[in-house]
């Protein structure tokens, strides 16, 4: 992609503040989205992340207007659009299947939204050409979708969505049909492009790595509700619920008893973490979530004592499993760490800010 000289949104007032309040959807007698609240900043890249059936796609379709909400309010820049039909909302959508119009050339595909908006031919041509250049498809204007590779088709779909300068860019699993390498490259390109243009983007995905890599904030969804809405680092290091902790990456979940604040007692040892939400009352049953990457294995400090069961070289990290009275603790150690021997007595520690603590059901 080349640099763009006249970024459309950079000179305008930033818009694209989406707000959902208590949005619900019932499908087939089952509530698939229950009272979802969220608000984006203009220009933000927000991801709805969750397993299939968690309600993320349904939520996106309600934002786009393809599904009517059964309750709640959807607003863009203060305007209530809950009952506005899709063609009167200003949203560019990109789909997993690309969804290009097969009988139109790439240029005509991209021009479609401008045609619907009755943009004059000269301006239309200019904007289509600019957009195709921006997504790296100059020279493909006259081709038909089936003559393009999957990655090129998705770039064309992105151009088609962005050329109308939408209030929101909606991305529905846009990288899932691409092979692994291309997926990573295209997702990084899309994220870079979105930041440059400044259009608010909502991405739906089940791929946690993708969500962590591109998002300003992530809403982790399950069972029709948002479990946690936060920056990627927060979501990763300090999961608020058991579901978030287990869904994203690998985690050590350690059960203990609250001692007030972020402190708790696990298997007779006192450890500390950051409470997710209100700190649990003293004596309450709590669970501490610690990612393997933040666990340090040594001989000093307050932490869980245990015996090294195995160490394994994994290429990018060294994996070390420590058997403690609270269960096994896995640590992913960097190369420069002192690697303990199997059978060695060690203490597992972490910075309190790198782990979270939540009430246990």
């Amino acid at each position: 992609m080349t640099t763009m000289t006249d970024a459309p949104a950079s000179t305008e007032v930033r818009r694209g503040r989406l707000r959902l309040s208590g949005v619900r959807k019932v499908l087939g007698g089952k509530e698939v989205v229950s009272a979802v609240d969220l608000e984006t900043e203009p220009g933000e890249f927000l991801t709805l992340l969750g397993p299939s059936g968690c309600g993320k796609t349904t939520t996106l379709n309600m934002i786009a207007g393809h599904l009517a909400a059964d309750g709640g309010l959807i607003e863009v820049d203060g305007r209530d659009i809950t009952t506005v039909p899709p063609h009167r909302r200003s949203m560019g959508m990109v789909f997993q299947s690309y969804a290009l119009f097969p009988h139109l050339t790439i240029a005509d595909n991209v021009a479609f939204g401008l045609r619907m908006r009755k943009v004059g031919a000269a301006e239309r041509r200019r904007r289509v050409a600019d957009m195709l250049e921006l997504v790296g498809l100059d020279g493909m204007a006259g081709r038909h979708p089936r003559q393009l590779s999957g990655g090129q088709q998705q770039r064309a779909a992105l151009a088609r969505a962005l050329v109308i300068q939408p209030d929101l860019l909606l991305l529905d699993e846009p990288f899932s049909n691409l092979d692994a390498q291309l997926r990573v490259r295209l997702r990084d390109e899309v994220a870079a492009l979105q930041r440059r243009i400044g259009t608010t983007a909502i991405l739906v995905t089940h791929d946690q790595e993708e969500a962590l890599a591109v998002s300003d904030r992530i809403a982790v969804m399950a069972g029709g509700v948002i479990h946690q809405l936060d920056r990627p680092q927060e979501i990763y290091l300090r999961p608020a619920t058991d579901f978030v902790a287990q869904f994203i990456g690998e985690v050590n979940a350690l059960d203990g008893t609250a001692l007030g604040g972020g402190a708790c007692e696990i298997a007779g040892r006192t450890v500390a973490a950051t409470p997710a939400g209100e700190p649990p009352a003293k004596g309450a049953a709590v669970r501490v979530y610690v990612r393997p990457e933040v666990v340090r294995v040594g001989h000093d400090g307050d932490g869980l004592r245990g015996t090294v069961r195995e160490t394994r070289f994994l290429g990018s990290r060294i994996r070390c499993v420590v058997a403690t009275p609270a269960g096994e603790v896995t640590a992913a150690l960097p190369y420069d760490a002192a690697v303990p021997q199997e059978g060695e007595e060690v203490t597992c520690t972490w910075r309190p800010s790198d782990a979270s603590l939540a009430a246990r059901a």
Partner: protein
Amino acid sequence: MTRLTRLLGAAFATLVGLFLIAPVAVTVASSLTATSYVTFPPQGLTLRWYGEVLAKPEFLSSFALSAGVALAAAALSAVVGLAGGLAIHRHRFPGRAALEAVLSSAFAVPTIVLGIGLLQWFAQMGLASSPFTLLLAHLVLTVPYAVRLVLAGLSGLDRSAEKAAAGLGAPPFLVFWHVTLPAVRGALIGGAFFAFITSFDDLTVALFVVTTDLQTLPVRIFNYMQYDYDPTVTAIGTLMVLFAVIAVVVIERFVGVAKLFGADTQERS
């Protein structure tokens, strides 16, 4: 070995082609005979029998009736096929499965059974024989096919494309016009083409539905041949072949005949 199989294949293809073409060639050739009876190879060379055809007004009116009904059958099959296909593909309504079953089993009903049934039914409803009843009878033959083609066309359409178009600002009618319709365009033209040929060509059903004043061209030829077997019939046959050839050429020019039958095999990657 491969050369031998290729040679055998070519020979087989040629024979099949000859077998298909031969009756038409015989008909065309014998329409030029100077004798007053049909014979092959033709003896002498004359266009007299074509003059005979044009001099018989009943043949011309039968041609007009056949062509008119066939055109109407083509247009209505396309419209009803589109509506029916969309309804079956998009909506869940009571009787949907039954409707689909009826539409797909319609092919299995012998046309003679259909003719007898329609004769009974029209009589009981008090519908006098007219171009309209003939059209209804032909629609029974052609609509199931049109619906099938439309359903096949719709199954190749990604519903997301319709969502994308709506999101880009297209109101429902324009979504239909710009996205849905192009996806079934080939199916509609194919369905209409099939309907036209079926209706224009039909003898069995028409025999039961027509009267002495109202005869389609095939019925007229059939009746004519029972009394006179002169080369007039082969001349008409030749004209009908010519008519079909022109139709195919016109369609080929605007759409491509291969496309009608789903030979659009360019891959989508």
